[in-house]
């Protein structure tokens, strides 16, 4: 190994000494220990690196950045859907399929559980990144307020267990003209937990009042029940026992 080779390698050696035992640098470091010229260069290099690292680490960070991250101050809005190109596309689709749509809608509405399937399909798109949240916040109260302000269904008291988790965001989707609200939470054990809500009135087969019905749909574990005027569904990829544990927590705001 020449001094040139050694200096090339030692240029990647961290100034804090963390690489002193890395076998990749062993020969170059040994050469620096025995060659005065290389040793002087290496000392100078470390001095330069330490000084630059110190200067860069002292660059001030905006004081409000941390709180903005934690409180999710930047609420994302969905991009406008009414661009000219989309309007033309919608018009063309409408003319082409209007007859089929009416026929399909009548058939679809007659099936029970349609809103649940719609909620799960939308959730899958949300989780895979194909769709974005309408609003984001780690505080579920902010999301509930956003949903209410936008005429989307939500309940005053969420299941007690959910109040312990930080929320991620919410989205409103539509099923046969009926809004469904989705709220996503950081659940226990790193798994996410999602809550879907829609108005109970008008559902052909609403879930039972206060007693969750557990099931598996499209790879999701679900628990559906009715609470007041709302039909609710808790959704997760976690095993069913965790889902049951979530709903076993009772309290003033429990269902």
């Amino acid at each position, binding site marked *: 190994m020449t001094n040139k080779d050694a200096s090339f390698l030692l240029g990647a050696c961290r100034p*804090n000494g963390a690489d002193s035992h890395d076998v990749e640098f062993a020969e170059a470091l040994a050469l620096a220990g025995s060659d005065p010229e290389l040793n002087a260069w290496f000392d100078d290099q470390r001095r330069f690196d330490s000084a630059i690292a110190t200067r*860069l680490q002292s*660059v001030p960070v905006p004081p409000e950045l941390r709180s903005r991250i934690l409180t999710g101050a930047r609420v994302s809005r969905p991009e406008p859907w009414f661009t000219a190109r989309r309007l033309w596309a919608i018009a063309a689709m409408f003319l082409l399929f209007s007859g089929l749509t009416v026929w399909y809608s009548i058939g679809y509405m007659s099936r029970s559980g349609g809103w649940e399937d719609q909620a799960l399909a939308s959730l899958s798109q949300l989780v895979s990144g194909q769709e974005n949240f309408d609003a984001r916040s780690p505080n579920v109260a902010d999301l509930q307020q956003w949903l209410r302000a936008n005429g989307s269904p939500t309940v005053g008291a969420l299941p007690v267990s959910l109040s312990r988790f930080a929320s991620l965001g919410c989205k409103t989707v539509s099923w046969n003209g009926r809004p469904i609200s989705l709220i996503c939470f950081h659940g226990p054990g790193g798994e996410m937990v999602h809550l879907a809500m829609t108005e109970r009135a008008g559902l052909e087969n609403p879930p039972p009042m206060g007693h969750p019905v557990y099931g598996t749909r499209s790879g999701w574990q679900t628990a559906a029940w009715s609470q007041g005027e709302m039909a609710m569904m808790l959704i997760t990829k976690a095993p069913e026992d965790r889902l049951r544990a979530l709903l076993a927590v009772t309290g003033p705001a429990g269902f």
Partner: protein
Amino acid sequence: MAVPDFAQIVDAYYAALYRFALSLARGEAAAADLTQQTFYLWASRGHQLRDAAKVKSWLFTTLYREFLNLHRRETRFPLADLDTEVAEIPEQTGSIADTIDGATAVAALQQIDPVYRAPLTLFYLEEFSYREIATVLGIPAGTVMSRLSRGKSLLRKLLLQERMDTSRKIVPMELPRTSEGGAQ
């Protein structure tokens, strides 16, 4: 080891991520947005990560990819001529860094091509090893060494130039003060 909660992760990394973003994005607002976006992506996808030791690497990798995604359409990164030729022993100029402040260091870094700037910033800011830098940037470890070598050489030259420019600045000569009535 369990992955820390969201607030702990923010506290541990937001400052370093912001500084990394600042070196890439050339603007405080853009750097703050990149940092926020990175934590948003952590909040939505980070739960898939089971190894707490990989959180730091995940965050820096994600921020870098977000930066590339955002600027891909605006900026076509020039294919830098990776000059790996190094002088027999590069010049010794360690003392030049002693006389500068953080803003000058950032300004000098921002003049360097992003190809070299990203590994340099990771090396200095969070003192990533060359292997970790290779992981974050998605390039071979040997390429990291080349870019660090070339990047440091460029940084030294820029700082030397900065010092020469500063020393050449014309300082207005202070004229002796006179008063209406002259010296008493």
